[in-house]
């Protein structure tokens, strides 16, 4: 049965789009049929991170308004033939998303895919509420930092009250994905630790993605990190997270630094 998963956070810049692309690609690499849907109307970026920016013809708003058929707007990934993208409009605004219209598109996607990943815009306005509206599960992307944790808490409250599932009295399944985790800063006690975040948010952990150059490199070239460098630490962490979404139980690995003595000295000097 198809699953609708919203990738959300409240706060901007925590890694929603990167995580949507990476989790979507990882699920596809594991054999699932996946579509990633960009809900950031007016500020789309999922197309860019997926490397499909020059192939966008129609978008989600066109489909919602009946201007284009779903099959015309879906873009098939060039690397994985079971991975698709439904881009957002760059010219319209978020008011163009209607409850009924989005509901119909999601239902149509449910018939075609195993996973529908909705990339939420930042904030708590219409775009964000529409992205979560029809979700069965949610990934809340959180950085180990006070403002991000506070916004995640707010978003959890909305997931529990403003989604169709919540309104029916059902529980939406929620997962915390910690991104931009900096091992050395955590070791120095400068960053909220993972247990504290999970305790404060009272939500189970899906994965810990280390801060890494590989993430930036991947978006520079328009490729999800799990495709661009499958052996990298963030790619492994995203793949583990995808397996957990599929129901596998995989031991959680807290990213650790493997640096030599000299590197440590240099690293410390740079951080000081």
């Amino acid at each position, binding site marked *: 049965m198809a699953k609708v998963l919203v990738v959300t956070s409240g706060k901007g810049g925590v890694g929603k789009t990167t995580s949507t692309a990476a989790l979507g690609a990882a699920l596809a690499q594991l054999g699932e049929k996946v579509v990633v849907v960009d809900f950031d109307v007016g500020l789309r970026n999922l197309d860019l991170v997926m490397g499909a920016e020059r192939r966008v013809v129609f978008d989600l708003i066109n489909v919602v308004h009946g201007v284009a058929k779903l099959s015309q707007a879906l873009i098939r990934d060039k690397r994985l033939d079971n991975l698709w993208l439904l881009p957002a409009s760059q010219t319209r605004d978020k008011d163009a998303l209607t409850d009924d219209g989005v509901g119909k598109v999601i239902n149509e996607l449910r018939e075609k895919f195993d996973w529908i990943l909705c990339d939420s815009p930042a904030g708590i306005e219409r775009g964000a509420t529409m992205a979560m509206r029809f979700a069965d599960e949610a990934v809340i992307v959180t950085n180990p*930092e*006070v403002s991000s*944790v*506070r916004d995640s*808490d*707010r978003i959890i*409250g909305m997931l529990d*009250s403003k989604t169709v599932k919540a309104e029916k009295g059902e529980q939406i399944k929620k997962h915390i994905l910690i991104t931009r985790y900096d091992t050395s800063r*955590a*070791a*120095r*006690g*400068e*960053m*909220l*630790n993972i247990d*504290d975040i999970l305790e*404060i948010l009272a939500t189970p952990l899906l994965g810990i993605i280390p801060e890494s150059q590989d993430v930036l490199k991947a978006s520079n070239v328009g490729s999800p990190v799990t495709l661009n460098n499958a052996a990298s630490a963030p790619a492994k962490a995203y793949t583990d997270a995808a397996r957990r979404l599929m129901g596998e139980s995989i031991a959680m690995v807290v990213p650790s630094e493997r640096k030599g003595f000299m590197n440590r000295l240099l690293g410390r000097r740079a951080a000081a």
Partner: protein
Amino acid sequence: MSMNLWRLLSGRSASAPVARERLQILLAHERGLRGQPDLLNILREEILAVVSRHVDLDPEKVVVRMDRGDNVSTLEVDIELPNGVEPRRLAVVV
């Protein structure tokens, strides 16, 4: 353990526990407010309805404000009446 050793050597204290404590206090407060109907807006609407039964007034000139203190909270209602009808301001502090 290496974390404690590092802290000892560097002489710096960790700021993460402070972050944790501030968040816990803040979120406990914010969760308490969540889910409550928008009390101020309801009060504003109802006060507006009652007063405008007797006096013509501009809905924009009705201000309802709540201040939370440690021991008492105050509700301030400030209604500006148009000149000519009743040249006075009603200010009620509860």
